[in-house]
């Protein structure tokens, strides 16, 4: 809205008259239905005549399919339908992949490439019966040597994809500044190798879908818990070979966690849809069981081997960073191939370094494919980078916190453009680092504290080493959308691009007034626990001067909503709040227009929006929102129904032009944390315990501080899990070793330390509400912070954590090697 609204109603009720809901920890509107068991997750969808699908999956990591015999299954009286890869090849399409040259079918054709890859789908009246049918499917294989080790895969001795011709289908060497000169000029260069294990989100709710084909319309209704249903719906409709409007993806308001992982569940959506089509429209339900989920559910994430070189001077100044890594994407480089690129947005972390080389290779192996996971490739990069900083401090014989402090970007350098073209918006990193150190020294390095020198010495005599490291980390937030297909863009086309070729997806939002007084809002994205309904309720209560109980928040399906990005990449605090505020402003404007045209007979400028209604400045006449809805109901063009698209914050910011044009990752908010986990390492067992986790966090304006803290707690818990216990390991034969929750270990009450949160609030100058993204933080900065504290605890062994997760076995092995 360019015009100024009368009564200065930026907060519609007038700030002096009522308190703002935004900025308070408004209780979540989602909770009641969840607590009473009423919430309907996808697992709970049960149309009366639904039938159930189960999948026969490969038991081999790498084999040619010689024969698929489904006759015994088909002969069973419970069998309703059978689908094979050949059936799909005859009538449907392969699933879109992250790289153009790959052809992945929803059921394997010709070859299987990982243990757990679906080969045959069967349908029966219930799931128990469907699983019985799976046992009757006979698949004959001819086994091949599996490609298991990512570094060996690069040799191309055995190919995962013969048609692609290499196991290294993507990679790029990117130089920013003059890296060679910086390394030559520096006093010192060190090099380290660091490994990041196959770790992922493992939400408590597995993937699920209920698909129903409509033979009359030749269209599909697909209820599912896919993440980003208005962005990645192409993975379903393209595979089915239908236009977008014929395949409607709808996600329930309650999804049992995703953390990025459910972006890649399209296979199941496709298969249930195909089966329903085969059954003339009978609804087909599929819920992934946990073993399927862990073994072959496209559930793994970043799995990297790093080699990092650091150029630095004797005074501790970092001159350049040269990073190379191999990322094991498993059998198919899925949509999140750009997970390999996101670290470019935070390539120097919080340090001021001008010269950077970034060199990566994506490899394919006989493991399940990668999906997205909280942090999207950044956690591994920050770990590798910060470990070299610890190495540097050790080499120089100084306290790591001092070399960190000396290299941090200063507040007078904000906004700060990093070498790759991304811009950090705001923040005082040195002050944050100082403050967390002060807090821990006051609270814990004192009598009775965890780091009481006497206690530390006594523990040391028992073989238990305590330590803490102080580190600062950036959480790059609010990803742009245009750069995300860089790896599917021809090099020539990339070079010729101009700024006007950049197309960012806005955030779409709708509001409707109802005659009963309800303010009905619609999000165009899905939610998996973040409390978006609460956030929108708070914002609209303020913006429209109504009570939170007047607001209802629903979700648009993929056909109704435009293509948009949605809930990922720490976007929603910024994008959803911007869209909600924009839509509310438009609605206020429309309400005044409506009253002008239909009621007051005065000009719109003489009408004010105030306290959930409009008032004529002259006559004092007033209309409430329900009356406005009624007034509007007979009109052709409805003024009380608005939709609004909030543009990505980079679109009007020329400082991002270069990165946008070149398709380098743009993340216009830099939330940050200064961390200090206190750890104790048992040198006898190798066990690491996090005794307490101090974390000072800044995500700009906090729209709902309770939810912000919840995101921090949960992210840090996943950070603890990643640092110490979680990993999808494979044996040398390519068999997955973590196929139950007995092997993929998640943090429980037994291993979570107390989290001591501190806050600072540096509003973003780039966003409508001053908020910065904060959905991923703790998982981004938790593992690296813990690793650095392990280094501090084991300083006398010159120990630098070279592998995540740092399991007891690995700690012991390293210490034994030192001995």
């Amino acid at each position: 809205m360019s015009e100024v609204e009368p009564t200065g109603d930026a907060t519609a009720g007038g700030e002096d008259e009522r308190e703002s809901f935004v900025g308070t920890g408004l209780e979540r509107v989602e909770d009641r239905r969840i607590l009473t068991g009423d919430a309907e997750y996808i697992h709970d969808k049960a149309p009366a005549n639904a039938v159930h699908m189960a999948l026969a999956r490969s038991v081999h990591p790498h084999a040619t399919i010689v024969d698929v015999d489904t006759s015994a299954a088909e002969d069973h009286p419970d069998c309703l339908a059978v689908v094979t890869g050949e059936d799909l090849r005859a009538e449907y399409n392969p699933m879109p992949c992250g790289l153009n040259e790959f052809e992945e079918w929803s059921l394997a054709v010709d070859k299987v490439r990982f243990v757990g890859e679906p080969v045959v789908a069967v349908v029966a009246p219930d799931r128990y019966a469907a699983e019985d049918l799976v046992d009757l499917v006979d698949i004959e294989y001819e086994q091949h040597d599996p490609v298991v080790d990512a570094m060996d895969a690069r040799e191309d001795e055995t190919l995962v994809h013969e048609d692609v011709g290499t196991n290294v289908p993507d990679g790029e060497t990117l130089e920013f500044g003059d890296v060679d000169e910086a390394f030559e000029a520096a006093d010192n260069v060190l090099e380290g190798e660091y490994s990041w294990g196959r770790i992922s989100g493992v939400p408590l709710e597995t993937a699920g879908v209920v698909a129903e084909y409509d033979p009359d319309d030749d269209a599909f209704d697909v209820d599912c818990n896919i993440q980003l249903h208005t962005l990645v719906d192409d993975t379903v409709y393209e595979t089915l070979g239908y236009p977008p409007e014929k395949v409607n993806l709808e996600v329930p308001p309650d999804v049992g966690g995703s953390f990025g992982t459910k972006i890649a569940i399209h296979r199941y959506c496709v298969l249930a849809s195909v089966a329903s089509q085969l059954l003339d429209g009978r609804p087909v339900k599929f819920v992934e069981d946990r073993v399927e989920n862990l073994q072959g559910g496209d559930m793994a994430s970043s799995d990297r081997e790093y080699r990092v070189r650091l150029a630095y001077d004797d005074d501790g100044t970092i001159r350049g960073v040269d990073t190379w890594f191999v990322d094991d994407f498993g059998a198919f480089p899925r949509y999140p191939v750009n997970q390999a690129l996101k670290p470019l947005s935070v390539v120097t972390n919080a340090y001021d370094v001008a010269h950077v080389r970034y060199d990566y290779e994506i490899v394919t192996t006989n493991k399940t494919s990668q999906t997205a996971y909280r942090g999207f490739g950044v956690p591994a990069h920050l770990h590798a980078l910060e470990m070299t900083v610890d190495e540097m401090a050790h080499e120089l014989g100084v306290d790591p916190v001092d070399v960190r402090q000396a290299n941090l970007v200063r507040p007078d350098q904000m906004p700060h453009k990093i070498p790759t073209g991304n811009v950090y918006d705001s923040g005082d990193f040195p002050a944050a680092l100082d403050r967390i150190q002060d807090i821990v020294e006051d609270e814990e390095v004192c009598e009775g504290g965890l780091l009481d020198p006497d206690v530390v010495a006594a523990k040391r005599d028992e073989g238990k080493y305590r330590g803490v490291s102080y580190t600062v980390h950036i959480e790059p937030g609010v990803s742009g959308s245009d750069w995300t297909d860089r790896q599917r863009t021809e090099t020539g086309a990339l070079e010729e691009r101009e700024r006007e070729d950049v197309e960012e997806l806005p955030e779409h939002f709708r509001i409707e007034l109802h005659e009963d007084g309800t303010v009905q809002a619609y999000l165009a994205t899905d939610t998996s626990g973040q409390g978006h309904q609460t956030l929108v309720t708070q914002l609209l209560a303020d913006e429209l001067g109504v009570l939170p109980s007047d607001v209802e928040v629903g979700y648009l399906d993929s056909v109704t909503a435009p293509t948009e990005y949605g809930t990922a990449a720490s976007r929603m605090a910024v994008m959803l709040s911007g869209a909600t505020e924009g839509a509310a402003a438009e609605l206020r404007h429309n309400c005044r227009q409506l009253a002008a045209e239909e009621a007051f007979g005065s000009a719109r400028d003489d009408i004010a929006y105030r306290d959930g209604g409009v008032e004529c400045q002259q006559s004092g006449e007033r209309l409430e929102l329900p009356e406005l809805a009624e007034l509007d109901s007979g009109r052709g063009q409805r003024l009380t129904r608005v939709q609004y698209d909030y543009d990505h914050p980079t679109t009007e910011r020329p400082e991002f032009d270069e990165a946008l044009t070149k398709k380098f990752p743009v993340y216009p908010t830099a939330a940050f944390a200064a961390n200090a986990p206190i750890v104790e390492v048992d040198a006898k067992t190798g066990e690491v315990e996090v005794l307490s986790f101090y974390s000072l966090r800044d995500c700009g304006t906090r729209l709902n501080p309770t939810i912000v803290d919840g995101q921090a707690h949960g992210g840090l818990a996943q950070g603890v899990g990643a640092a110490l216990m979680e990993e999808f390991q494979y044996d040398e034969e390519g068999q997955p070793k973590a196929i139950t929750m007995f092997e993929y270990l998640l943090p429980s009450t037994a291993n979570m330390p107390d989290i001591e949160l501190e806050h600072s609030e540096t509003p973003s100058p780039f966003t409508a509400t001053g908020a910065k993204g904060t959905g991923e933080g703790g998982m981004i900065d938790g593992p690296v912070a813990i690793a650095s504290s392990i280094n501090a605890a084991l300083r006398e062994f010159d120990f630098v954590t070279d592998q995540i997760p740092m399991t007891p076995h690995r700690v012991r092995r390293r210490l034994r090697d030192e001995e």
Partner: protein
Amino acid sequence: MSSENTSHSLDRPTREVTLSVNGETVAAEVEPRLKLSDFLRQECGLRGVRVGCEHGVCGACTVLVDGRSTKSCLTYAVQVEGASVTTVEGLSEDGDLHPIQESFHQEHALQCGFCTSGFVMATKELLDREPDPDREAIEEGLADNICRCTGYQNIYDAVDRAAAELAEADYPRGED
């Protein structure tokens, strides 16, 4: 590709089971292999029983069987013949949240909510057994349940709050 679009009457052996679910007697013919979790969800319509792993680790399916917290995914329906089962739906009375549920709400002890029923039921058993648990007892009492969203901090606070509320209100406990 093959399909047969008819309904089958599944000809599989069944057994009769009679039990009390949230105070009401339920009698059903079930397959012996039917898990209690599926029985409660599908036969009794109690979808607050969540199924997260089906191998007894995550605890999302926790219900009370004769007052003891039990993983319903590791229990067959026929095994609870004659028993009294309480699910999260059996906690709230007259539409009011039970103090444990209310405490989880007040302390923001849930995000995606998929683990919440299980945590609430495990907390119920814990507080029935130990009305004023210290932190160690809470950690131990809830160690069989996994939450992937909250990092547990607010769950600890919710249990503390629930213990205090229950002590204050003299709420009936352990009636099963």
